[in-house]
């Protein structure tokens, strides 16, 4: 069977809508009857990636490809890119601006959490061009 594809434009202008795409995917996974553990991992990993696109890259495109065996999440943006991916992956590393720190973001835990909750994480990033995260979660 073809995977189910859910696609969302993530708005970089309106911070209050950040997290809506992951919330919609979570709802769909519940309707489909995936296990709470799978739903939790997808929800956390996708949420962190989605928030990163809003905070660090002015938004982008979020896609979830759902099949029985695995769920793939692709988060693509045309933001500034990440110069040093290894550094960005380190716990605690963050360039988040002050105004979102007050909301509790900017602990530098997003990318490490995505790694922790997913089975595979690929980051392609070119400075000045953009970043694409490919997250795989097996069910």
């Amino acid at each position: 069977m073809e995977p189910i594809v859910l696609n969302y434009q993530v708005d970089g202008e309106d911070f209050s809508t950040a997290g809506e795409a992951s919330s919609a995917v979570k709802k769909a996974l519940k309707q489909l009857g995936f296990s709470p553990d799978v739903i939790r991992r997808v929800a956390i990993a996708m949420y962190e990636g989605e928030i990163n696109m809003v905070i660090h890259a002015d938004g982008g495109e979020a896609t979830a490809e759902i099949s029985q065996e695995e769920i793939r999440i692709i988060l693509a943006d045309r933001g500034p890119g990440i110069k040093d991916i290894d550094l960005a992956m380190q716990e605690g590393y963050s360039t988040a601006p002050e105004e979102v720190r007050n909301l509790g973001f900017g602990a530098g835990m997003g990318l490490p959490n995505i790694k922790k909750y997913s089975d595979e994480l690929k980051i392609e990033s070119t400075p000045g061009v953009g970043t694409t995260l490919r997250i795989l979660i097996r069910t």
Partner: protein
Amino acid sequence: MEYFHSVTLDPERCRGCITCVKRCPTEAIRVKDGKATIIKERCIDCGECIRVCPHRAKKAVYDKLSMLDQFEYKVALPAPALFGQYNNLENVDYILNGLLDLGFDDVFEVARAAELVSECTRLKLANEDCPKPLISTACPAVVRLVRVRFPKLIPHLLMVRAPVEIAASIARREAMEATGLPSEKIGVFFISPCPAKVTAVRQPLGTNITDIDGVLAISDVYKPLLNAMNKIQHPKTLSESGLTGISWAYTGGEATSLLRTKYLAADGMENVIKILEEIEDEKLQDLDFVELGACNSGCVGGCLNIENPYIALTRIRQVRKYMPVSNNRIKDYTLSPEEYLCDKPVEYDPVLQLDLDLGRAMQKMQEIQKIEKILPGIDCASCGSPSCHTFAVDVVEGSADISDCLILLKKQLEETKNDECS
């Protein structure tokens, strides 16, 4: 499974408008053939449709005062919200004495048992392995929502019996001892602020047993009680509840009675859903307790009350003044520790799942996506479903037909007309 619901439709009054369809928090209402219908599996009896219906076509089913005649000895269990309904009430004894004049032989305030539940909760929270945050089960509509939509949170539910159930057990036992009558001759009546609590008695979750014989509505008792109260000059002292018990009538009352600071209290279905999602996403893990109520301001906002919730709330703050913080302790009662606890787990009810088989559920979702693509996407609800998405689900589930979308029909008609012209 059979479903009982207090919330029902009066088809005579229903005009088939879509007010309730749009407002139902679990998308449980559809308009079919010009009348609203409630999907039984999904309804959580929150009463939102009763509140919003402009034609008063949604109503709650509950017992009538005449049911008292069936019993030799009658006990009233007034919900704390009742104490907020009357103007210029000096103390709650007027209400309790008035209930006796209405034909009850005794009264037992639900607020008293609420204090016992608070004590149980404090003990639970002190225990290391207590799941946190613990989620209040005081509002049955919230428990039902968790059960159909948040299975992961079921272990967080406070599995202590509802105050009214504990009140009923104590009251029945006391009545049997005082009168020597057998249990069946004693009628225990709850005076409820909402349909959710009517349903919770008729079809309990977390237990099979109840000591409550009938559930009356505050709105039904209001007038006769007012008449009775007007005749009272010197009320006997009957109230035995404390400040914390009475405070359960409004949002935050239960949470503050735990004497801890890491709590959250919220009301209104939209907020409730949002908070449950946050807990599910593990964003509220540093909290000890979460209190959630379906109605604005909590139970004073229940749709079987008479008074505006905010006014009722102010009155309750006045009558509870000078009351002891808590006046009821577990050690003062003869119930065994088990009798405070739920004896049956709350089970996940996957009514919102597309199919129990993952493969079939995926197929259905693909069909839903296909249908959604051709729908106008304006969520006008003239098809009878709350949104284009739910309509697509209904079509795939077979409960609606694509031709029910009038906008699409119109578009197709116009296209054929244009084709004929060209």
